[in-house]
């Protein structure tokens, strides 16, 4: 077995990496707090027994926001070198939405379940 050969990291580079990581950590904490907050708001709205036609779009909207936060901050989609991942994810979402839309509005697969 062989060890992986690596170049030693220079002091300057190390400092740079540390600075970047601190920044990254701060962003992650902020978005994490934001997501917890959004979740509480969603739970609160449901618990308050408001009109469903008012609650549902808001909850879906906040869920969408959370997904974006997840992808961009937790799963690093904001970083460089993630263009293909973004492309693949968007394509996948496009297909998934197309399938669901087809099921609900075109082939009426929901009808027998109602």
């Amino acid at each position: 077995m062989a060890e992986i050969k690596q170049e030693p990291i220079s002091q300057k580079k190390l400092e740079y990496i540390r600075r970047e990581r601190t920044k990254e950590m701060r962003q992650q904490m902020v978005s994490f707090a934001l997501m917890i907050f959004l979740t509480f708001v969603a739970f609160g709205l449901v618990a308050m027994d408001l009109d469903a036609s008012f609650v549902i779009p808001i909850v879906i909207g906040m869920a969408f926001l959370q997904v974006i936060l997840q992808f961009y901050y937790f799963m690093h989609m904001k970083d460089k070198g993630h263009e293909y991942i973004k492309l693949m994810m968007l394509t996948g979402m496009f297909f998934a939405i197309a399938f669901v839309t087809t099921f609900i509005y075109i082939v009426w697969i929901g009808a027998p379940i109602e």
Partner: protein
Amino acid sequence: MASATKKRGVGPVIWDYMTTVDHKKIAILYLIAGGFFFALGGIEAMLIRIQLAVPNNDFLSAGLFNEVITMHGTTMIFLAAMPLLFAFMNATVPLQIGARDVAFPFLNSLGVWLFIFGGIFLNLSWFMGGAPDAGWTSYASLSIKSPGHGIDFYALGLQIAGAGTLISGINFVTTIISMRAPGMTYMRMPLMTWTTLVASVLIVFAFPPLTIGLFLLTFDRMFGSSFFLVETGGNTIIWEHLFWIFGHPEVYILILPAFGIFSEIFATFARKRLFGYSAMVFATVLIGFFGFMVWAHHMFTVGLGPTANAIFSVATMAIAVPTGIKIFNWIFTIWGGSIEFTTPMLYALAFIPSFVMGGVTGIMQAAAPADYQYHDSYFIVAHFHYVIVGGVVFGLLAGLHYYWPLMFGTMLSEKLGKISFVLFVAGFHMTFLIQHFLGLWGMPRRVFTYLDGQGYNTSNMISTVGALMMAVAVIILLINIIITVAKNQKVGRDPWGDGRTLEWSLPLPVPHYNFAQTPLIRGLDAYWIEKKENDGKMMPAESLDDFHMPNNSIIPFVISLGLFVAAFGALHFASGKEWAIDAVSDLPQHPWALWVLILGLAIVFISMGVRSWKDDLGYYVTKEEVLKDLEEQERGAK
């Protein structure tokens, strides 16, 4: 690894193949296993044709006939065509993009072993109480009712094999995106690499619906859920949708790599740059994208309503446009070329009219009102055999002759190759052309026999004789392979003499690290450019130095074995249980089933744990070793 050239016994060679992570050896594994299943599916096809040769035949019973047609379809699509394509993808793609291996060599090995164990599991159904009998589509209304364990073998076997395919798909996407040599931009990638990329993306998107469908079926049949049980609120149409959301992209997963193989062959043996390269790439991507938007054209007669049928009808017809672009580009590539009629080129030339015929009948069926007439008749059987045999199988046979020297360092006999080509193509048209007319005359598909005096007798006999010709052609091909292996006359670099792409610039047999130095790519048809403008040697993009390679591992084999064992537990879990569906509730109980399931999964998770916690850092190929190899090649060339 350094001792790869030494003479060894059979045991170490088998061990080497069981543990290998080298894409070239994995390609050979895919080729052998896929070839075996191709023979099995072929034997099943022969049984079908013998049964249908004369009216009122009792060669096969009705139930056995259903099992044979189901296994023929399932074996040919999942266990023969896809693995054989993976064989050529593995053999060529890393070499075409200038990589030393795929991105995840361990996963590559896992993929092949999952496929092999899944395939064996599926075929063990023959010896363990009957094969699946609900057709390769396994529509839930049939498969839930099918008594015995046949469908369970189908669901579990395909789940295991499908996981392997999904893993390989992810692997190829990553490899092609991230491991191209310097200068190998996207628009310089050979078409085989492009079609592999698009087919792999299709695998990544299309296999999850199949996985879900199979899981739902597994749970309905083995663990007491009711997704497809109408009497408890389930819906069998959901299976059809899930299956075809996977199933339609699946046929493009099959045909696109075949298109890639043909594109390479046309350019090589017409000795011309591929006409309209960028249009070809565009068409490939477009076919892949459209492939997801047309699944309901398999379900026109389900009763989705005129809106759905119209939308899917138009979307289906749209696919003819990029496919037409490809056909014309191939014709223009041959046009004015200095053509060499080798066996692969003959298959490629026969492919164009055969595939166009299959495509035209496809457009006929895309018209939803007309499809009500064609539906469930032999016309459909004729159509999909024209595209799959005339497209994919021709591509596989062409690829086998074309890439044989790259994989084994020897040449298949051209004379025997041409004999089997003539027999195969003639037999193919004889078998399936007449089936269009049988369908239009009203013969339904999936019937085990037909009555005398309906006017089907002669045509069915013609079809059977054609099938026998194809069988003879495959036997001649096998003889050709055996003679070639026995003679073992080695050939050197660029054996066809007109190699254009990077893989032909390598010495044969290809060293286990592929490239001593990563090559610099200066354009499309990288090797051809160096031959015409330079001394015919690839320019290196790096200095000669040590480089890192992965170690062999038995873990992929063990993981696959674990799933294979677990599948037997799941299979018998519901036997004789009160809550089970009618199909299995009167079978004898097997109290050991749960423990076998747990044991199998334990093997899987323990081996995954070993893989995760035990560091395996690979090894270095040293500069001295590479220099020694290069010297040997130099001497061999002189």
